[in-house]
């Protein structure tokens, strides 16, 4: 019994702040720090949400996040799996060396790449106003193919029996059509896990979008929210509305795909 008491207690500690954020987002600005605290907003108002969409382009931020994350997930799922298939199932000279060279980049903290990547984006922008700084390309391209994804998929694809592939080759199919028609369908669960991981990383990415986007209309949700929260707002209710909007999609996705996500996460770590 004490067990469940402890579990319930800690669960309240974990969920509490989220509840508080949502509740506060519906409070009029005077009530945010009401004493004694109001656990249920009374009166409640949609003013904060309205402000967040009118004073700041939160709708735009949301759209940007959706487009960028969608593109990154899509590109990763396709290209990571394609490369993983080659590394897992095809024989070619340099296979192991190339894979190793990719793998070691995982050891490097991404902050080492930050500034040169930024300058690359500056250079691209000089080339064309549609590329580089302040464009979707800067947000999408660096993360479009991730080594971790290739690694993940390679583990997954390694277990596909070779004979299926052999017989398809014997029948005259090209590697590309094998990939598209045989491998992708079998790899769907793995690709789903990859999609979830990539979605999480891309949706919540912060430092890079902060650096590379100057125009407010191109910002993503986390950056828009951070600037709002940091701006020492007069009305914290707005900030809480922002957090609800930013965390909302992620939480909904999570609640539906919990198991798959956690399975994917723990698969690699337990074996050690």
């Amino acid at each position, binding site marked *: 019994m004490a067990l469940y008491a402890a579990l319930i207690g800690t669960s309240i500690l974990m969920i509490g702040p989220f509840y508080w954020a949502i509740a506060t987002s519906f409070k009029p600005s005077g009530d945010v720090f009401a004493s004694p605290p109001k656990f249920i907003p009374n009166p409640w108002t949609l003013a904060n949400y309205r402000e967040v969409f009118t004073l700041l382009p939160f709708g735009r931020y949301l759209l940007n996040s959706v487009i960028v994350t969608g593109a990154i997930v899509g590109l990763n799922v396709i290209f990571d799996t394609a490369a993983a298939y080659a590394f897992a199932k095809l024989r070619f000279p340099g296979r192991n060396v190339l894979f190793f060279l990719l793998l070691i980049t995982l050891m490097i903290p991404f902050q080492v790449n930050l500034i040169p990547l930024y300058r690359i984006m500056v250079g691209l922008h000089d080339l064309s106003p549609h590329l580089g*700084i302040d464009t979707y390309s800067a947000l999408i391209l660096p993360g479009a193919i991730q080594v971790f994804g290739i690694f993940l998929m390679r583990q997954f694809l390694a277990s596909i029996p070779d004979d299926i592939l052999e017989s398809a080759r014997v029948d005259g199919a090209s590697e590309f059509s094998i990939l598209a028609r045989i491998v992708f369908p079998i790899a769907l669960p793995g690709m789903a896990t990859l999609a979830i991981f990539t979605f999480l990383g891309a949706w919540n990415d912060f430092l890079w979008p902060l650096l590379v986007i100057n125009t407010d209309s191109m910002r993503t949700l986390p950056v828009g929210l951070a600037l709002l929260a940091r701006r020492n707002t007069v009305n914290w209710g707005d900030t809480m509305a922002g957090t609800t909007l930013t965390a909302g999609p992620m939480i909904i996705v999570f609640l539906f795909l919990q198991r798959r996500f956690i399975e994917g996460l723990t698969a690699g770590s337990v074996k050690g």
Partner: protein
Amino acid sequence: MKRSMLRGFALAGVLVLTAAACTGGGGDGDEGNGPVTITVLDYYGEATPFSKDVIDRFEADHPDIKVKYEAGDWDTMHEKFTVRVSGGDSPDVATMDMTWIPTFASKQIFADLSDLSGGQLNGSAIEDHYQPGAIEAMTFDGHYVTMMFDFDAYGLYYRADQFEAKGIDVPTTWDEFRDAAKKLAEDTDGDGVCDKYCFEVYGNDCFHWCQLLFQAGGSILNEDNTAAAFNSPAGLKSLEFYKSFIDDGSGIYWGDAQGEPIRGIKDERLGMFLDGPYYMGLLKSGAPDLKGKWAVAPPPVDVEPGSYLGGTGLSIPVNAPHPDQAWTFIQYMLEQQQQVGVFTLAGAAPATTAALQSPELTKPDPYFGGEAPFGVFKDSMATATHFPYVEQWDPIDTDIGNMVQSVMLGKATPQEALDTYEAKVNEELAG
């Protein structure tokens, strides 16, 4: 099958590259064909002198120039502006806090306005439009890097209704100041910490404490800006004086995490504070229900009247896409009507001499009980001292802010803090 896939890839690649190359050449507003669009970036927030009306009128007067207005904020601009310029993504016109000018200018990010303007502003010499102090502030390395747009000097904002109710006289000396604060403040829950109508002790920059330093007869750096001069009897006295408000229980330390002071004004935790003219506008938009309760008086004096002189300037980045049109826009914003608009729209003080004399500025203001506080700021400006124009001003400003914070938070005694930070500032100046 393989062959055709390969060809497919190759074709796609070529198409993408061609598309990228084609879109690269265009750019916006080619010379001579159609209107040029300039980007104007400011940090005023909601109450901005760059209102839609102002911009529309400009576009009507200049059919060959379109204005794309971008609303930035002070923090982000302070942090990211130089990065933006170095990244080639410059606006054409940007508002600059005068305290950023020496540091930013030393990074070579501003266009030479002396060159661009040929020395003329709206038909007469630039020097004709400004007071000598402003001219000095706008200059770096022998040329103009910014045109001063609004100015900032401090006045004492106080709750006039509370003063009347509690029988407090408007303080004119430091002693009276402390007394007034004590009488004004209320400790509603008896924990020794002020809860209502407190005096705002703001520790995050040089502005707020430095004015006290000046009032005590001190200065920040020495004559030729080579060493710190604030570790002096005047420095100690002013630092102790500032701290005394907290010790007395009549002041409240307002830190970053508390948010904007306007919050404290709204919920009446603050009853007295020293700040610039733009707060007039902030009060009206942020605390409209306190109309008629606030008033402004000259800051109390110790040895001599003293205030910090700051403000906003308009600058053109060195790699701005359309510097000539940018200069046209800046001239427009310095015309009398727009300068008076700085006051009527943003509640701030215009910088040009002509605008400072406009009767608009001294009309009775219902928010301030029918008074016209503007005169207070104008007088303050006359006795204000500007910050030292050194390259390292930005980091030194931060250091001094940290020094004040460390004392107000009780992390160091005033003398200790003065010693520590004198060393830091000297290091900054040497390095």
